[in-house]
């Protein structure tokens, strides 16, 4: 295809080859389109570096005078430019021009499935091919996007099977609302909810919130083998059309369709082993005890999280047998994937069937994930003016999980004594082995993590059916109507059992919780497109409307006090403890949209878009409210590279400048927050009372103003391209529920207010480094940098924090006016006005400031991120890898802090060295010009308070993290056709090896800095960058083969 690109991109070569001779010849020939073999009219033929130019006639013929050694350029819109050096004896040069689809006229799918050529886009729209995603063999395909698109931040909750992954485009624009982009599959929104743990029926001491359990993000239901392409839309126009749904951007997925021709069947598989390699470190020098005295039952209880072992005893005696319990706990995970698809068809109809099966056994005993998908798509041309395409996908998945975060197995594992063998957790008769011999109740017996993952289990099952029907009518050449109907229905059921003998459920004698979530999303998009060319002006007007109806209902029940100890059922619980809860979330939206595109001479493109949207979540039964609001955008794209002036620059092949500006409106995401919102009272007599979050009759839409400008430049015959974008987003009048004085009548109150600004730069560099018959080497570099800042909070409030992220110690996701949107706040150690540490004159130790003094201590936003993707092919081998660089960005090493306060951190190893904490005594003189320097020597070994939470600042456990990680690498080998010719069944075959997360080079002292303390349900900036109780991402190695029949 790109057969002409033989010359390396060293410009010198080009100049050498154009040595000058003065000998005029007339050259003539015919230009033929490579795709249809038809003569091409109006192709510009230029003698490079001169003003001599002509155009081909109706039959593609041209004639021009040039000198030997000069270069003839053949250019035509959307076709690759060709250059031929005039030889001495040439009189006739016939040319085949190749359509430059892949380089210039690339088509991308934008809002509502509207296809636009990349030339005309006034914003950046980066695309990832389905095969690149599938190749990474990820169980959650979102994880494959890391590094592949500039400006995308992917954070998995944990490295366990079925874990949710959150995705944020550019930066968090919302302080307290969801920043997840809209997912669109084949033109209709695809639900990517993560179930909110708060909708479950809570049960005594066992809490099911978003830090203790993960319910997956539903976009992972897609079969990655079905994905044709993924386009990430971040720009103003894209989001202005999608309105409130697209205010945080959109991830537009196009699935594979059948291709006409002979039926082709493909089968591929992958077998994977995975192993953890990133662990928090624990010290194995000092054993259990307190103030240097051995005590097997010594405990600490930092932040009242519940007692855990304290390791402030003496050194382990020399002959103590120590176990590597952390490594012994985890196992090697194994998974297999099988994918099959058949497609075929003729000129009138095509079809594609696909099926896939995935089964994963995780690195944590008993954790697993299983997924089965079926897909069927078909297209049919009913007449020349009417065609239809349909798609049905079914997926069924099961996640087996254990609890995470506080009380979960990982933290228990970290705290587990090294001098006890973790695998020895059962007595011969199958009962639980007790370690804390003096414990009078099992409530004081700490769960062996292996006991925990065997007895305290959770499971989620999802059945999902998504269908789309697309009708296309073309009554006239200039007119098109399209209607897309989508119905996406799924049910997710799950349970969690806490065994009566486990620590958390001992007092309640067992806890069993179940839920069922049923979701139904209906969507219809109708659009009309009018295209009309008037002279050099071409006009496209698109108008239409869309409506959504989303219903999610969650039925949750719980029971306590088991009759049979090991039986999981609500019937096995005391009827008096049964509790049920219903949550129904219903929203509707209507949007009218119009988009007018004007282009001049395929050079200058202008685009105007407007939407008028109505959101059900604004309507009230109490006051009259208008659910409608409007927003719009304008963009300009200028392909300046096609101007004649640039023809002289041989090395310059393409240039486009673009600018766009848009606004986006957004209604409340949550329903029922306008009218009074009541909750069920569980006190005596029941009834209803206002919920903790106060509704607000006066809420209005929030708006985001979005400006973006940038350019796309290509050099050396498109072999090097650079695309860069600057953007600025301002989101104001945010609808957030902020804490405030209880004088509001609520604990949190919905307000309209606050402003967030995001500024950034994104750049993508693509180079085709080597291109010849044997070797091809492509390099893609994605760079992004985003600074998100909170300008103000509603009504001048001083701060906003997300209680869900307050998982350990006094660290939480909390913003202040002027702070980063990704700020972490904590209570620091007390200091005097000169900034010196204040020392308690009695204890000789510093003390933490009061809880009212949360201040920003970290910023989780990275300075920049780089994704480096290389793909090299040599003969039948191809090799690709994706390196992910991150510079900066703070991470709270909560695991380390947890280890520190329990005496297991390596930071506590110097405990026998007496020290004097540098600082001044808090004795009344601290803020005078002559404060008293601290001279009190403390010996941490003999002090119960030295490593205690009250004398330690969380800020010391916040690390600024850089990393380089090899996200994935694939080596594959395609069997040569010559080999396959001997038989007729298999038309192509390849084998591959893919490694995921093979290594990380980082300055982070904990296990994995890329984890989230919450789930993808998180609002605002969420729990990413808070490393507490989540298992790291394992290293995976996949083998498999692909066959085509």
């Amino acid at each position, binding site marked *: 295809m790109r057969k002409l690109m033989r010359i390396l991109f060293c410009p010198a070569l080009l100049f050498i080859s154009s040595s000058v001779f003065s000998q005029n010849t007339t050259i003539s020939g015919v230009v033929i389109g490579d795709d249809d073999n038809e003569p091409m009219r109006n192709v510009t033929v230029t003698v490079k570096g001169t003003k001599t130019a002509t155009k081909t006639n109706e039959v593609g013929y041209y004639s021009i005078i040039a000198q030997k050694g000069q270069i003839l350029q053949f250019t035509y819109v959307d076709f690759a430019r060709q250059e031929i050096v005039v030889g001495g004896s040439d009189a006739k040069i016939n040319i085949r021009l190749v359509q430059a689809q892949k380089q210039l006229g690339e088509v991308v799918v934008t809002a509502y499935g509207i296809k636009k050529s990349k030339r005309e886009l006034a914003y950046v729209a980066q695309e990832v091919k389905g095969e690149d995603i599938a190749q990474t063999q990820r169980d959650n395909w979102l994880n494959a996007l890391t590094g592949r698109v500039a400006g995308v931040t992917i954070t998995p909750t944990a490295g366990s099977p079925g874990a949710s992954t959150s995705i944020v485009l550019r930066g968090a624009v919302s302080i307290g609302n969801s920043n997840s982009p809209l997912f669109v599959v084949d033109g209709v929104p695809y639900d990517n909810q993560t179930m909110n743990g708060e909708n479950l029926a809570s049960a005594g001491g066992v809490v099911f919130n978003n830090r203790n359990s993960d319910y997956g993000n539903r976009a992972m239901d897609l079969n990655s083998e079905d994905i044709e392409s993924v386009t990430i839309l971040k720009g103003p126009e894209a989001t202005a059309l999608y309105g409130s749904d697209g205010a945080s951007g959109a991830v537009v997925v196009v699935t594979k369709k059948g291709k006409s021709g002979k039926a082709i069947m493909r089968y591929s598989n992958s077998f994977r082993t995975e192993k953890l390699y990133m662990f928090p470190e624990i010290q194995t020098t000092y054993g259990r005890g307190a103030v240097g005295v051995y005590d097997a039952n010594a405990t600490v209880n930092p932040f009242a999280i519940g007692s855990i072992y304290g390791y402030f005893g003496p050194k382990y005696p020399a002959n103590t047998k120590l176990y590597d319990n952390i490594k012994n706990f985890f196992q090697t995970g194994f998974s297999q994937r099988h994918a099959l698809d058949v497609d075929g068809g003729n000129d009138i109809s095509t079809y594609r069937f696909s099926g896939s099966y995935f089964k994963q056994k995780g690195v944590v005993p008993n954790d697993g994930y299983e997924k089965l998908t079926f897909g069927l798509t078909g297209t049919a041309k009913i007449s020349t003016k009417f065609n239809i395409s349909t798609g049905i996908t079914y997926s069924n998945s099961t996640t087996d999980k254990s609890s995470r975060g506080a009380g979960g197995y990982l933290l228990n594992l970290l705290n587990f004594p090294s001098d006890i063998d973790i695998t020895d957790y059962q007595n011969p008769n199958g009962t639980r082995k007790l370690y804390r011999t003096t414990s009078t109740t099992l409530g004081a017996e700490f769960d062996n993590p292996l006991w925990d993952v065997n007895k305290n289990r959770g499971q989620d099952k999802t059945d999902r059916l998504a269908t789309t029907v697309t009708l296309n009518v073309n009554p006239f050449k200039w*007119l098109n109507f399209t209607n897309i109907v989508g119905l996406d229905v799924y049910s997710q059921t799950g349970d969690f059992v806490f065994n009566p003998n486990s620590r958390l459920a001992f007092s309640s004698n067992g806890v069993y919780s179940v839920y069922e979530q049923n979701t139904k999303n209906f969507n219809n998009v109708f659009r009309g497109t009018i295209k009309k060319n008037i002279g050099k002006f071409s006009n496209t007007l698109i108008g239409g409307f869309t409506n959504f109806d989303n219903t999610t209902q969650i039925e949750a029940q719980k029971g306590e006090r088991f009759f049979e100890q090991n039986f999981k059922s609500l019937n096995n619980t005391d009827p008096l403890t049964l509790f049920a809860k219903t949550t129904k979330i219903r929203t509707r939206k209507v949007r009218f949209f119009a988009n007018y595109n004007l282009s001049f001479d395929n050079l200058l493109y202008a685009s105007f878009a407007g939407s008028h949207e109505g959101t*059900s979540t604004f*309507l009230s039964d109490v006051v009259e409210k208008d659910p409608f609001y409007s927003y719009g955008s304008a963009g300009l794209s200028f392909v300046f590279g096609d101007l004649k002036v640039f023809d002289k620059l041989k090395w310059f092949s393409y240039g486009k400048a673009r600018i766009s500006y848009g606004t986006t409106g957004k209604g409340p995401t949550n329903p029922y927050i306008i009218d009074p919102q009541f909750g069920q009272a569980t006190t005596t007599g*029941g*009834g209803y*009372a206002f919920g903790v979050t106060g509704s607000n009759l006066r809420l209005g839409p929030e708006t985001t103003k979005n400006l973006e400008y940038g350019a796309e430049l290509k050099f050396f015959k498109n072999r090097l391209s650079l695309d860069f974008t600057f953007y600025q987003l301002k989101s104001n009048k945010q609808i957030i529920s902020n804490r405030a004085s209880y004088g509001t009548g609520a604990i949190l109150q919905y307000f309209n207010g606050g402003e967030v600004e995001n500024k950034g730069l994104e750049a993508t560099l693509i180079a085709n480094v080597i291109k010849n018959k044997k070797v091809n080497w492509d390099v893609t570099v994605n760079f992004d940098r985003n600074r998100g800042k909170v300008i103000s909070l509603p009504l001048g409030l001083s701060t906003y924090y997300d209680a869900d992220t307050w998982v350990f110690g006094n660290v939480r996701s909390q913003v202040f006016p002027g702070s980063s949107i990704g700020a972490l706040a904590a209570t620091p150690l007390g200091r005097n006005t000169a900034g010196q540490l204040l020392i308690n004159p009695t204890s000789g130790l510093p003390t933490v400031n009061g*809880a009212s003094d949360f201040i920003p201590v970290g910023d989780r936003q990275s300075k920049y991120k780089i994704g480096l993707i290389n793909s090299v092919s040599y003969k039948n081998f191809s090799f690709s890898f994706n390196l992910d660089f991150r510079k900066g960005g703070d991470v709270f090493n909560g695991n380390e802090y947890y280890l520190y306060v329990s005496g297991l951190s390596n930071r506590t190893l110097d405990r026998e060295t007496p020290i004097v904490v540098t600082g001044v005594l808090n004795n009344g003189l601290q803020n005078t010009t002559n404060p008293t320097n601290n001279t009190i020597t403390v010996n941490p070994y003999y002090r119960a308070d030295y490593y205690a939470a009250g004398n330690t600042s969380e800020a010391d456990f916040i690390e600024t993290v850089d990393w380089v990680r090899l996200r994935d690498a694939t080596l594959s080998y395609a069997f040569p056709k010559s080999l396959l010719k001997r038989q007729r069944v298999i038309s192509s075959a390849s084998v591959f090896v893919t490694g995921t997360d093979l290594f990380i080079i980082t300055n982070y002292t904990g296990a994995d800095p890329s984890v989230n303390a919450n789930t993808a349900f998180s609002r605002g900036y969420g729990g990413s960058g808070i490393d507490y109780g989540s298992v790291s991402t394992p290293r995976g190695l996949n083998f498999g083969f692909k066959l085509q029949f």
Partner: protein
Amino acid sequence: MKKFSFITIITALVLLVAVSGCKKYLDINRDEDTPQNPDASSVFPAMLGAIPRGLQFDARFASKYVQNWVASTNLTATFDAMSYAGGSDNNGDIWRQCYFGLGKNLDYIIENGTTKGQWDYVGAAQVLKGMMFQYATDYHGEIIFKEAFLPDKAFFKYDDQETVYAGVDSLLRLGIKNLSRTDNEVSTTRLIKGDYVYDGNNAKWIKFAWGLMARIAHRITNKATYNADSVIAFCNRSLTITADDFLVPFDAAKNDDANFFGTFRNNLTAYRQSNFIVSLLDGTTFTGVAPTPATAFNRDPRMRHLLTCSEDTANGNGGFRGVSPSVGDPNVLLTGTYAVGSANWLNARKRVPVPWADSTYVNPSSSVFNPSYRHYLFADKVVMPVMTASEIQFIKAEAALRKGDPTMAHAAYLNGINLHFDFINRGTMPRSNAVLFYGNSISAAERTAYLASANVKNSPATLTLTDIMLQKYIALWGWGFFETFVDMRRYHWTDVDPITTLQVYKNFTLPVLAAENFGKPVYRVRPRFNSEYVWNRDELLRIGALNGDYHTYECWFSKP
């Protein structure tokens, strides 16, 4: 072009029809699981259920200020020492209850009930609203009153106590007026549906409201404007018999509807009866005679119902022991098994028991409903009193004595004591809650003997403020923490009765005060931390609440 305009017209028409239909399509923003416009009768029970939450949560702290209970060890003695927990919501639950638990809900009942003509609900809600603001201002001094619940506000101005009491007064009067109305809309649900305290008995609600009026009118005994006649008049219209008592019952089917003071919820493990209450009930304080087996006739028969006794009962008063603030039980750590007769064995038997049962030192049934562990108001399924007829009689007695009518005072004083005996003896409780007496009820003979003993003044001439206030202290012990807190602040803890020249709260000693008190006892409680100290700081700065000793600032009501 012709085609184009045709399309335009069609499109415009379609849009027009669509937009008008759209609003109807969108009109689904109402919660189908939980009503967003419930009837007053559905909100009302949740309000009654919310009352104990605030009072009992904060009782953990106020009870220590007034020495109903003290901490079992000196390690947790912050509140014993009349201090506060900075950076914590401890002691902020009356605040939460005033603005959130009941708060805006009551306004909803008032508005909704008014439109439907449910005057009984409107009146009862007004009374409860008055009650909540009364509790909040008694407790915190300056509070948000006028600006409470105003929309689109995040910061709120505080009002002084005079303003709040005046506001409470009008709320109560409005409530009484509405409860007295007989023109309730007949088609609507009546108060009996949601009211499980008084079963929709308007007359009792009115009595309760007058009781609250009596409370606030009686707050200002130190002021020249104090009017004993009004207080007496209000008392006369208030609760008169135990059937009038405002008692909130618990169902005790699960955590949230069980008594906060019961074993299931396990909040009293670290609380011990104080020496002050023990010596009030064993006769020491009233008679001035130390208890011995020989003076057992001085023991109050109520003691065994209210308090719990140790294993070792040979201390002269049947084994009832108390703990002093900031000291704790000296034997609390003797939890092991000791050789019979050894010193540790002897001392271990002297440990002061938990409030749930005699000779019991740890919670016997945390998270398990076990009706056998109960003592007085400390059980899973008993009532939480808010106001009793006995309390009203003591208010009346004090007002009458101050007015100079010892005869009326004495009669009320005796009524108060008798009504407390009745309260303990009450055989049936709302919502089938457990009775309060331990074992058998107090016999008539026991009562007569007590009334005739040296503990009780049997002539108006000898009646003193001390007798009234200490008997009131007993009657309110274990539930009326906040009223007792008001009373003791009115007497500045250790004020001397000019007539007897003795301390009114005889034998009450201030604890060793915390350093941050600067030698002053507690006079108010800091506003809720996570409401005000985090989110309304400017206003706190204005009233001085950011000062470390703000809790020692005397409130307006007790000043002359």
